[in-house]
């Protein structure tokens, strides 16, 4: 077994594999399938100030090499999360990253303050959910807006703050730099790409919201490029994601500049994929004589 430990800023991870927000619930369901303590971390389902029922109509659609989703941040709200999910999450022996979305700055700050009173390891500020206004993508498009929300968030929490960036940002490097300047401890990128699918017989969009988030293998090359560009232009660590389906993909993201990686869509293909990826990274390090992941982070 190689040394898979990695430091993401001040936070220690037992391995770099984190399950991505929105694909892993609050961990309960997958705990019935395998020992999720084996994971480097879990990024929770996105939490908003108020409870949300999510979007109506179709929520999932398959593309030729990926999926589109329009869940619309269905979640129990921060109070429900604290009451029903935190006790379970706090008992897990893995890093817990709470993903927070919001429609306006005060919603974000309310939820951030609330979760900061718990024993979690990190906050992931979601300024990139494309499926609802409440998801905060409005904050993730323009650098000026992202700067403002990160600045405010930084003031209300001492927890490590990771900002989840949108591939739909006007300038991914510019927005990443702004987050760094305002005190973000790290960046996670990328969220889903805004896409469109059409039912040609009904002559209508598949999704009621018209546009939906694209994820899976088809977005990997773009996501990798963005991780690499951000890595070369910032000095805070990155959690890379976007179509990671196996250990090779994960290692590509590490070589492009990711300290940790997040696995999303692949959980739906194989519920145990995160374990396979951890093992695959380990095997690669063993084979290549890599003693620490730091040797290969951002070597491209």
């Amino acid at each position, binding site marked *: 077994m190689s040394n898979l430990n990695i430091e993401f800023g001040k936070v220690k991870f037992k391995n770099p594999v984190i399950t991505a927000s929105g694909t892993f619930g609050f961990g309960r369901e997958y705990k019935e399938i395998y020992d999720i303590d084996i994971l480097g971390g879990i990024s929770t389902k996105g939490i908003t100030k108020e409870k949300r*029922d*999510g979007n109506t109509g*179709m*929520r*999932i659609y398959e593309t030729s090499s990926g999926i589109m989703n329009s*869940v619309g941040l269905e979640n129990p709200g921060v109070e429900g999360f604290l009451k029903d999910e935190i006790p379970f999450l706090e008992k897990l022996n893995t890093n817990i990253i709470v993903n927070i979305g919001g429609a306006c700055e005060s919603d974000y700050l309310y939820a951030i303050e609330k979760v900061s009173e718990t024993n979690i390891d990190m906050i992931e500020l979601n300024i990139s959910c494309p499926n609802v206004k409440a998801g905060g993508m409005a904050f993730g498009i323009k650098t000026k807006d992202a700067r403002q929300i990160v600045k405010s968030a930084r003031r209300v929490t001492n927890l490590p703050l990771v900002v989840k960036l949108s591939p739909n940002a006007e300038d991914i490097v510019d927005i990443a730099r702004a987050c760094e300047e305002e005190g973000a401890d790290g960046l996670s990128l990328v969220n889903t790409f805004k896409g469109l699918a059409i039912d040609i017989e009904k002559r209508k969009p598949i999704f009621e919201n018209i546009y939906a988030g694209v994820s899976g*293998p088809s977005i990997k090359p773009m996501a990798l490029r963005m991780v690499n560009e951000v890595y070369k232009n910032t000095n805070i660590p990155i959690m890379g994601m976007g179509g990671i389906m196996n250990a090779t993909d994960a290692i590509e993201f590490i070589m492009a500049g990711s300290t940790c990686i997040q696995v999303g869509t692949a959980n*739906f293909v194989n*519920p145990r994929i995160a374990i396979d990826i951890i093992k695959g990274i380990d095997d690669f390090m063993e084979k290549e004589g890599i003693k620490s992941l730091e040797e290969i982070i951002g070597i491209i």
Partner: protein
Amino acid sequence: MAKILENIKVSDKIYKLVIEGKFHGEMGQFFMIRGWDDYPLLSRPLSIHDKNNESITFLYRVEGFGTNKLTQLRKGDNIKLEGPYGNGYPTVKGRIAIVGGGIGIAPLLYTAKNLKNTVKELDIYLGFTEKEYLTDEFGKYGNNLYVSVGDFITGKLEVDKYDYVFTCGPEIMMRKIVEMAKGKNVKTYVSIEKHMACGVGACLVCSCKTKNGMSRVCKDGPVYLGEDVFYE
């Protein structure tokens, strides 16, 4: 990974897939099935149609790319399945009616087989749009078998005669049954069909509105008390 024993067409667009192995699973539960590697990305949720110590059987209708790809599998081919998932129909006693419409009959054969020896009376109602199929199979388990083709099967159903109605099929049919049972001393259980991604309750793409709030069809369902789902 398991081996396919049989994958045969039983009617227009309807196929029966038999997979070798001893699998756990209750009536109304489902498996996430994939008979391919990468594409399509998602597995397909198929309910248990029948099972015994040697094999498990699924009944599916060709709807799109995934189910079309399933039809190409042959005896001896490998297939992946995860499960069983979902809650399934409850074990009950008394007088039961099982009502299936079209491919909605899929989870009801194993249900009938299970209930046959425990309930007082079991009547089976099957409705088809164009052509009936597998009615002989169902005939083995019911006290009475009612079949309708091209007509509403609900026309034959007298809900008052039963303590429970278990149903699966088009939403319009299930909704009608729930309405018929309203105010009467009969409980209806409906099996809901939705597009799914994870199958385990994590992604929320199959959420549906119930009387008790949002519910995950894959994890909290697919079987619900009719009055909890069709309440509006």
